[in-house]
């Protein structure tokens, strides 16, 4: 389109030159005036169509940018027009003979500039008119364009058209232009500064338009002009629309200036709410959130003084802050509010001086808002805003503060939830550590000797458990085996497990005052009595521990044990070829916490034979349940040993565990499970190294 416009302008220039001085090309002669007007019309159409096809010059909401590029782009064409005119006037005084032709050429140049200016201006106006417009307005605009295009043809047809029809068409188009000019929606999107800029820029466009108008009005009847009158109807209508839209925009913007502050404030409120939301989400601590709320609230409602009161919470030192008001004054106002039963409720007073109570405080404030910070669960505090003038706050201030505070409370509660979950995670971590510590308490290396086999299994129901077992080699080819269960679960139980192990290792020390070999180490009943008195002081009242201690003397082929409330020992007697439980009496540890405990614990001696099997376990094994709620039970355990006693200790253990697993399949594990299987072998003489 661009070369076409340029070409048609060159054509126009040539025609005009020939028209002004036919002697330049005698063979061609004077071109008819319809040709001149035709070329002019083609040029105008080309320029307008080119402008029409351009992408929208409005970028986002940059209305000022659009106006500025219009004024400093095509607007400057007016300056060129004036300059050319001045040059022409200057030349006329110097070389009078050339002036009619020069005048005509410059006139043609200026017509071209004016058409360019109009096209650019009116298509900029299109961007503004159609900004967020309805489909109806778009259709109206298209009709407006089409009708304007028709007026371009008007001067080409022979002047036989009835005058009234032309007038009606032109008048109708002018009215349509006025109607379209009333669409100035874009003005609402300007802030105060932008509105001032827009007023100045629109004034600039009107000035540019005036310059052109003045030029054409002045040159219209100049005797030097030897060109036919230009496309009047089209150009006048376009000029009228361009000027009128600019004028309307100027007026609308100008009269919107006083209210720009209000608009801007509302905009600012929305923006600060967005800002607050974004900032608050980044905040790491409740204190940061409160500070953010306080600053945003003061800025948004333009308070002269304010304070924030935050109820003290665990772990947060922050209790609020003050802005342009002393804590004493704030406290005095708060006392007054409490007296009136107005503390911590939403409250707006626009005439504080009307209240005798407030006057007595001798403070200069006229308006006040109290906005509580609360959720459905609890009260977090309250925000107090003060203004010097009366009627300083409105309902909108109240509602925006409401939004602010509810956003704040939401964030505070989110933070608390997050902290709780972090705390929870820490506890989980610590439990893991406790679990690994406890794991390290379980003997990993089982005693190995050719007199017996030991196989063990231990599994805690939770991270840490209450079951324990341990081994200790004693001099004289003896082995101490301890098994037990602390009542309760969790960290407390785990703690007592560690304690029991400590007691075991401490009591199983050689007594230097012993008179004979046998008394160097406590017998199991003595051990239980001592452990009981050691535990008496630190075990909580409702807790108790069950334990069994076996001291196996594999040199003499016997063992002695005491059962302190622990599960009965299951035993396979190879001589009798039968499996049975040792039913011995014995009270759990921590149940009686005085010396009388010793009466409740007994030692049991037994001489074992090669092939005998001892099964030691905790109640987690026999109390494991199946889907029907039945317990595994001592009988089932006994039957298992009857079936497997001849196998290796490890195989016996695995068989029992497999059976247990099948029995309680699909059921959650309720209690810790510990199982030890000891199988005695035929005694073998020591092989000297």
């Amino acid at each position: 389109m661009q070369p076409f416009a340029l070409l048609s302008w060159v054509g126009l220039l040539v025609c005009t030159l020939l028209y002004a001085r036919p002697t330049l090309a005698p063979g061609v002669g004077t071109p008819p005036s319809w040709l001149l007007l035709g070329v002019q019309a083609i040029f105008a159409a080309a320029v307008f169509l080119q402008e029409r096809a351009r992408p929208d010059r409005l970028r986002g909401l940059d209305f000022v940018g659009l106006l500025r590029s219009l004024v400093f782009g095509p607007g400057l064409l007016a300056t060129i027009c004036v300059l050319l005119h001045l040059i022409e006037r200057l030349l006329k005084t110097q070389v009078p003979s050339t002036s009619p032709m020069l005048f005509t050429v410059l006139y043609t140049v200026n017509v071209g500039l004016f058409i360019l200016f109009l096209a650019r201006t009116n298509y900029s106006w299109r961007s503004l008119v159609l900004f967020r417009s309805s489909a109806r307005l778009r259709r109206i605009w298209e009709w407006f364009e089409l009708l304007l295009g028709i007026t371009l043809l008007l001067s080409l047809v022979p002047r036989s058209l009835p005058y009234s029809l032309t007038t009606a068409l032109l008048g109708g188009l002018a009215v349509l232009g006025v109607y379209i000019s009333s669409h100035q929606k874009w003005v609402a999107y300007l802030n105060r500064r932008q509105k001032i800029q827009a007023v100045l820029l629109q004034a600039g466009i009107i000035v540019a338009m005036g310059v052109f108008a003045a030029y054409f009005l002045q040159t219209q009847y100049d005797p030097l002009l030897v060109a036919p009158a230009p496309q009047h109807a089209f150009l006048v209508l376009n000029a009228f629309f361009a000027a009128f839209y600019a004028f309307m925009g100027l007026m609308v913007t100008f009269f919107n200036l006083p209210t720009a502050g209000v608009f801007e404030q509302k905009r600012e409120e929305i923006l600060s709410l967005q800002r607050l939301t974004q900032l608050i989400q980044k905040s790491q601590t409740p204190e940061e959130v409160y500070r953010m709320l306080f600053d945003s609230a003061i800025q948004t409602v333009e308070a002269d003084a304010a304070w924030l009161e935050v109820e003290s919470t665990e772990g947060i030192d922050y209790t609020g802050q003050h802005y342009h008001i002393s804590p004493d004054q704030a406290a005095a106002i708060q006392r007054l509010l409490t007296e009136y039963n107005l503390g911590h409720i939403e409250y707006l007073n626009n005439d504080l001086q009307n209240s005798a109570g407030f006057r007595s405080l001798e403070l200069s404030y006229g308006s006040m808002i109290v906005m509580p910070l609360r959720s459905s669960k609890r009260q977090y505090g309250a925000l107090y805003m003060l203004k010097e003038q009366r009627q300083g706050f409105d309902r909108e201030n109240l509602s925006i503060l409401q939004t602010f505070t509810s956003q704040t409370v939401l964030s505070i509660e989110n933070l608390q939830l997050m902290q709780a979950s972090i705390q929870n995670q820490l506890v989980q971590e610590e439990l893991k550590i406790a679990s690994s510590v406890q794991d390290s308490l379980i003997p990993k290396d089982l005693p190995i000797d050719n007199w017996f086999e030991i196989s063990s299994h231990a599994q805690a129901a939770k991270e840490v458990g209450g079951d324990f077992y341990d081994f200790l080699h004693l001099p004289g080819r003896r082995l101490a085996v301890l098994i037990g269960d602390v009542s309760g679960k969790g960290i407390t139980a785990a703690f007592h497990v560690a304690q029991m192990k400590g007691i075991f290792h401490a009591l199983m020390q050689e007594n230097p005052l012993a008179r004979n070999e046998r008394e160097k180490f406590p017998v199991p009943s003595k051990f239980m009595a001592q452990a009981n008195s050691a535990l008496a002081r630190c075990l909580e009242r409702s807790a108790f521990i069950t334990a069994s201690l076996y001291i196996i003397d594999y040199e003499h082929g016997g063992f002695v044990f005491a059962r302190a409330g622990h599960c009965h020992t299951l035993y396979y007697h190879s001589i009798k070829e039968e499996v049975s439980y040792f039913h011995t009496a014995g009270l759990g540890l921590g149940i009686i916490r005085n010396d009388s405990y010793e009466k409740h614990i007994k030692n049991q001696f037994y001489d074992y034979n090669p092939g005998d099997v001892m099964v030691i376990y905790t109640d987690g094994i026999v109390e494991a349940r199946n889907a029907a709620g039945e317990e595994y039970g001592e009988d089932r355990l006994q039957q298992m040993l009857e079936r497997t006693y001849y196998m290796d200790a490890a195989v016996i253990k695995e068989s029992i565990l497999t059976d247990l697993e099948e029995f309680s399949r699909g059921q959650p594990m309720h209690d810790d499970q510990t199982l030890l299987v000891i199988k005695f072998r035929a005694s073998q003489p020591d092989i000297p190294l």
Partner: protein
Amino acid sequence: MKINQHTTDHTLTLVLDGELDASSSVLLDTELNQPSILEYQKVLIDCQRLNYISSAGLGVFISHLQRFQDANVKLVFFNMQEKVHNVFEILGLDSLLTIVPSEAEATAI
């Protein structure tokens, strides 16, 4: 777990119904903790409907044992199911507590 109680003269009878585990033992502890309970001469525990007792449940009885003894209040269990009795026995509590087969025997003590 439900705990019903009825009193006659100087005797308080607590009827335990259900499983005495970690959570329900709190209920029992509250009952036994009442100071007025020490005004009775006897506290009978009816275990007929007690299906299961956990170590937490045992702990509750154990923790009140000394207090009852000091106040000279007799604590008597009766109608105990065999598996529950077995739990008491394994822990050695049968030698420490009075456990009788029937209510008649419990009242007779």
